[in-house]
């Protein structure tokens, strides 16, 4: 069936890329795989119309970003005030600097992670980020500014004690 083949090709071409992007938002590879698979599951039911889109991948990404946001919110409310005993998030092997960035990203609200992915990873201009997330441009700008500030604070190296001038 040609339509089915078209969906398979789209899936094969975009799945891994989207998992990589969603990993930045979720901070957990298994969670990223799950939300992307769910977004593709939803896309499969409307592939007839989606295949006519200029960039069907953008639709799947938006659904996955929304699912990631709601999943994180749900988990946070469930786990609030509870000691987390489960396994640590599954993160692929990366350099120490990138692991530090991944850890810093996990401290940001999910809404800020979404704009970071779209703007800093995918290089989308602010206006397009706003369109993709259906947000006002000002909201995107302020989320980006807050995210950058928070990341800078988290990634700032502790000052070298010997380099600190001593005053008598």
């Amino acid at each position: 069936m040609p339509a089915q083949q078209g969906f398979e090709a789209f899936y094969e071409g975009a799945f891994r890329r989207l998992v990589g992007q969603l990993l930045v938002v979720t901070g957990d590879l298994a969670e990223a795989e799950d939300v992307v698979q769910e977004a593709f599951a939803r896309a499969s039911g409307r592939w007839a119309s989606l295949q006519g889109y200029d960039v069907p991948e953008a639709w799947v990404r938006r659904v996955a970003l929304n699912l990631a946001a709601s999943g994180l919110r749900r988990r946070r409310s469930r786990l609030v005030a509870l000691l987390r005993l489960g396994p640590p998030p599954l993160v692929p092997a990366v350099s120490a600097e990138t692991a530090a960035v991944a850890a810093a990203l996990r401290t940001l609200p999910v809404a800020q992670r979404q704009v970071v992915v779209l703007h800093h990873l995918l290089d989308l201009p602010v206006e397009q980020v706003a369109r993709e997330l259906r947000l006002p441009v000002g909201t995107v700008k302020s989320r980006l500014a807050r995210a950058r500030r928070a990341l800078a604070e988290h990634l700032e190296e502790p000052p070298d004690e010997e380099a600190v001038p001593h005053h008598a």
Partner: protein
Amino acid sequence: MPELREQLVELAEAGAREARVPGADAAVRRGRRRRRQLMAATVLGVLVLAGGVVAIDRWAGGWGGYGPPTGGRPRPSATTLQPIDPARMFWGPESPKPAGPLRQMAEGTFKGRHWAFYLFRGRAAPPDPPGERWCNALVDWRPDGRLAGWNVGCGLEQELRRGRELTWHLDEPVENRMFVYHGTVTRQAARIRFQIGDQPPFEARIVDLGAQFPYNWYVAVFSPRGGTRTMLDRNIPKTATVLDASGRVICTSGSEPDRCG
């Protein structure tokens, strides 16, 4: 932030590289399963709703055969309305019992349903202090004329003692998308304008209660965008403005001193 971008790219590429790919077939199957679940939930919801409507129909339909609503103007439709019986309608230990006839203040139709507003002297039920007081009742009928439900309130005199130019209540008839603002208003009022959020303003109908009352009554029937009680309860600004015959503002809700609402 070029370094940030490089590290994000590294993280995303590592994620893409190590991702397990369940396959397009698995996504299609998951989509089908999800759609089946959604459909089952929808069917279940419709069945529950239909069951509820049937139950309410039976409950409301049980009060029949006690004389039609009295007074007021002729109804715009020829539908025969199920008669009401105040003595049996306002049941329950905490409901006020009518101590006199119901005076019909206003009636109308909205989205094919008939409604009427009544004023009556009610005998208080515990825990309210004993004695008679003025009560109001909003009654509504379904499009086929069967009685749908009623809302009763008796807090009128208590509110009037607070010296308001306008008292403001919201009623929501059962199983309807219609909402009603009603209450007392100063006899100097010629118009009352309501505004909910950014929706177009709408005006109330003022009912002259006659010289025996120190105030008049108003009724405003409306259907807000969204049409739910939740929508009205959200933090959406709602204002009421009372104007006299010359168009001068008597009071606006939320203003200081708050004499309006």
